[in-house]
């Protein structure tokens, strides 16, 4: 049953404003990058279909306004997320320091069933820039201390590691999604008359 079901993965990108959340999403989904900075207003999302372990899944990637903290959309924004992507700018130490609060914020708002094992992925963005201020080692240590969350050093501008990072995000999100399924759909419904499903037409809409 689980293999036949269409899968939707909800991914939320969090991090301080200006770290490149929108750029990462655009680079991954549209393969586009612009140097012009435009603050995200509210929230926006993009969808992309990807193959994960021979399964076609749809990713719904939510980009957030770093400065707004999303109160206006309410809990529905966080709820049902399958993976949370934390982003910092490797040239901006303050954005690295904020990671803890972003992670806490997410866990409080989304209140996942098993917070200790909820999949997070850390991205250190803008590695193409010269003035690096957050050493790779420090970021790796932080990620390791948070239940070994995967860490990628990316450049949305150059497209470095973006594909790989999102592949991991999709994979971990899918693992999370399937796990939740086991809880939710434990007694899978029994189809008494299996034939009727195959011949189903669109009758009248309702």
């Amino acid at each position, binding site marked *: 049953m689980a293999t036949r079901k269409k899968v939707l993965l909800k991914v939320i990108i969090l991090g301080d404003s200006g770290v490149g959340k929108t750029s990462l999403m655009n680079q991954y989904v549209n393969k586009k990058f612009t140097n012009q900075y435009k603050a995200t207003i509210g929230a926006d*999302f993009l969808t992309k279909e990807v193959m994960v372990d021979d399964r076609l899944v749809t990713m719904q990637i939510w980009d957030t306004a770093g400065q707004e903290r999303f109160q206006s959309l309410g809990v529905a924004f966080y709820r049902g997320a399958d993976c949370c992507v934390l982003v910092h700018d490797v040239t901006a130490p303050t954005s690295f320091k904020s990671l803890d609060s972003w992670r806490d914020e997410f866990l409080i708002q989304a209140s996942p069933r098993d917070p200790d094992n909820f999949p997070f992925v850390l991205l250190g963005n803008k590695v193409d820039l010269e003035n690096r201020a957050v050493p790779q080692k420090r970021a790796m240590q932080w990620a390791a201390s948070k239940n070994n969350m995967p860490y990628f050093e990316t450049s949305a501008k150059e497209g470095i590691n973006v594909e790989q990072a999102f592949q991991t995000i999709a994979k971990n999100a899918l693992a999370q999604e399937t796990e939740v399924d086991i809880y939710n759909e434990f007694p899978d419904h029994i189809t008494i008359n299996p034939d009727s499903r195959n011949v189903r037409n669109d009758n009248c809409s309702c």
Partner: protein
Amino acid sequence: MNFSSDLSNSPEYQSFRATVPLKKLAVDTDASKTWKLYDAGPRQVTSPLVCLAPVSGTADIFYKQMLYLTARGIRVLSVESPIYWSVSDWCEGFRRLLDHLDIERVHLFGASLGGFLAQKFAESTAQYSRVASIILSNAFLETSIFNFNDTATLFWILPGPVLKKLVMGNIKSESVTELRVAQSMEFIIERLDTLSQQELASRLTLNCVNCQVDPFKLKNMPMTIIDVFDESALSMQARASLRSHYGHAKLAHLKTGGNFPYLSRSDDVNMHLLVHLRQFSSNSRYSAQKPAEQESQNDQPESNAKNELAEEMGVGDSTSAAEVATEAS
């Protein structure tokens, strides 16, 4: 009318009915043709969101959207048409209704038949850009997918119970495991029972008489398609066809929701509606939302109170519904 379903008895629904009046307006030369509508939120907004119901629904089925969005300063209408037997008559009637209400432009949220009509209306008014944007939920491009094109011309003489059966055939699903989906079905079926034979027959006729949308005419229309990933009355092919014809549309997928996600997954649907409408908030001519700076000055105390009430209800939304559910079970 006495409704017994969980949702009808929820404090949220009761408060909606207590605060937002159901209006009746005759805009045709035939005065017996009356539109029923709820109109909530700031009146100075001339490009509101208008919700269009499916065959089985009445205007109140969008109460959750109205409560949530009006609390955020958005004007929302939900309308129910009188008996029309053709899509072009419906479009003409709807245009008159908007004229009568001094509404220049609309954002349309259409579910199923409502979504089909939203597209047809946008198509027919494309030159005047009367429709600013469209949000579709379980909508379709052509009525031929229902395989009733030939019989549709006879719907008007079929008895009510037969027509109801035609509609119910699809919404009664044996595989509903989710409480919220079950509750949404119960609520809709209750509404379906209030429709007269003529009302139902005319809606089914619109739904099934051979007709299609020309998606090319809407290729520049800002659009969001809200799609559920679980079972709904529309086949996967019909849904995929809609999506592929509107390559520019934003795809707001929901994990589950069944046929009536605006009731069963209202939190998510409301959020997508808000995200969709926000793209227009900087342009007052197209915005469904009242500009923030006006909020404190121009607002009448009466509508303020209503907004606050709606806000309260909106926030308490899911918890109160859940409480009712546990009590009932």
